């Protein structure tokens, strides 16, 4: 049976071409699937349990998708709600959905899947040997699990499938794998599993697999032998190259993709141009595993930060920027010790030279003399107050410290007042592990609710 999946874009909040969406709806898809998250931007979203994207952008795009769903009469699914897919961001997405349902006058059955992992589940799984490290992984213990502020498990196609089986109009899922939302319905309908997972991976970033990535909208037809992918923007094309190259993107292995119940192997996949816009793919394999494991993501607080920024324009200091910060660091570390009684283990102070090697650090190979150098001081301490005290303490020295004792005190450019800024908590990723489950729903909670706003009698 052919299953037609419409993917409006790689992530909700990034925008899509509305005309391309309308063209996709006109083609009669069976389901609309979109991703809502990723770890791309770092651990802050998971640490705080908040969305990276603005509520306004999210709501505006979700409104269009809810309207498209109502018009087509098909399910709409979002995975990894609110970037990190914690319970709090699923609830945030639910609140937006409820507001829109009221504004649009829609009757809806909404299913939610919660992916946050309670500490007791994790510690008991650790004790039972059901948590396994991936490569490379930080060491974990009961204490390190306790130090995590948020842990989520990545749901797969099985949990999305369970939500769709409730007959929900809209599925709001917590953290899921990139491919889970797209693969669920075609798998339920018996399409070729290798083709389903491969097509889902190709479609998960929307039109990134086409010649016009920002147009967003992609349509994939799955069947019992392969899949066909077509971009919905008029000026976009999918070519065997654009489609096959997408397996490289953000994948450490371009041929193998691990999912909760097995893995996809595309080594033997064949890509054929059906015409100028559409590509047919077959030969992808799905290999089931004996165990069902879900990936875990966790964040913990690694300290609190205050930063300070100064700009050196004086050529003498620009030319000697590294020597200057080395000397400055030694001097202020002594001052911090003297005034605050803090030693090396109590805080970190790092100066990065913007214009010299701020992006690559010690592996930078290029040298030269820049016009100016930005000095970014990053202070990390056990609490915000200490980090900020250190920021204030070093402020006058960052402004005026001389390279040698026999020269006039310099004054550098501070771009704002105060020169130091509080960054709040520093979150760190704390897990690269998988959790073994006896049954897919064991680590997840599925709920449904009906809401009524349609006018009529």
């Amino acid at each position, binding site marked *: 049976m052919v299953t037609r999946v419409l993917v409006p874009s790689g992530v909700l909040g990034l925008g899509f071409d509305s005309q391309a969406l309308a063209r996709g709806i006109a083609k009669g898809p069976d389901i609309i699937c979109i991703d809502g998250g990723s770890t791309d931007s770092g651990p802050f979203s998971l640490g705080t349990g908040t969305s990276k994207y603005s509520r306004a952008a999210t709501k505006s795009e979700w409104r269009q998708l809810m309207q498209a769903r109502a018009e087509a009469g098909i399910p709409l699914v979002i995975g990894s709600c609110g970037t990190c897919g914690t319970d709090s961001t699923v609830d945030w997405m639910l609140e937006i959905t409820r507001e829109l349902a009221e504004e649009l006058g829609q009757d809806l059955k909404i299913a939610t899947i919660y992916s946050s992992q309670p500490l007791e589940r994790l510690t008991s799984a650790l004790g039972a040997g059901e948590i396994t490290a991936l490569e*490379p992984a930080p060491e974990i213990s009961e204490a390190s699990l306790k130090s995590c502020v948020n842990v989520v498990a990545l749901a797969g196609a099985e949990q999305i499938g369970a939500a769709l089986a409730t007959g929900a109009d809209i599925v709001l899922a917590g953290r899921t794998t990139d491919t889970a939302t797209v693969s669920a319905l075609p798998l339920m309908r018996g399409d070729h599993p290798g083709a389903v997972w491969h097509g889902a991976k190709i479609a998960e970033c929307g039109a990134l697999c086409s010649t016009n990535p920002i147009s967003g909208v992609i349509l994939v037809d799955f069947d019992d032998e392969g899949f066909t992918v077509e971009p919905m923007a008029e000026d976009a094309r999918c070519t065997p190259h654009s489609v*096959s*190259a997408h397996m490289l993107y953000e*994948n450490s292995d371009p041929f193998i993709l691990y999912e909760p119940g097995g893995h996809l192997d595309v080594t033997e996949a064949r890509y054929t141009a059906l015409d100028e816009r559409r590509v047919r793919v077959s030969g992808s394999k799905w290999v089931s595993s004996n165990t069902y494991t879900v990936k875990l993501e966790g964040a913990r607080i690694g300290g609190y930060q205050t930063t300070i920024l100064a700009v050196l324009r004086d050529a003498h200091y620009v030319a000697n920027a590294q020597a200057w910060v080395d000397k400055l660091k030694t001097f202020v570390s002594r001052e911090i010790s003297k005034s605050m009684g803090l030693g090396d283990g109590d805080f970190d102070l790092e100066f990065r030279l913007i214009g010299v090697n701020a992006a*690559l650090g010690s*592996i930078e*190979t*290029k040298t030269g003399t820049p016009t100016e150098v930005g000095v970014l001081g990053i202070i990390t301490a056990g609490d915000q107050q200490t980090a900020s005290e250190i920021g204030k303490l070093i402020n006058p020295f960052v402004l005026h410290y001389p390279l040698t004792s026999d020269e006039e005190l310099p004054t550098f450019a501070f771009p704002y007042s105060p020169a130091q800024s509080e960054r709040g908590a520093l979150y760190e990723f704390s897990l690269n592990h998988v959790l073994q489950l006896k049954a897919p729903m064991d680590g997840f909670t599925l709920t449904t609710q009906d809401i009524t706003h349609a006018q009529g009698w």
Partner: protein
Amino acid sequence: MPRVGDLVFKVRSKNAGPFWVTIDVFCGQQKAYETVSKALTTERVAELFRQPAKNIKRFDIKDLNVIKFSLPRPIVQGDRFDRDMHGAQWAVLLAEAEIELAA
């Protein structure tokens, strides 16, 4: 000696999850692919990123004229010492690396 970036269409890098970074060398043409896949050794890449060569996974993908290198991030994404949250600037170092071509 020519630089990798002068010989190929594009070099791109990105995190592959918080614990890995992956670098794709899009050679464009088959001839460039054949030249660069020979001249750019895994050891050279390891030296460039100051990592042991055994940590680097290499894929020579002839059908796409792509050479791909994946390695565990020496500093995990978002760690206090991380300088490049998306790992996207690593590509520049490889693009600017000079390589010796076979005579």
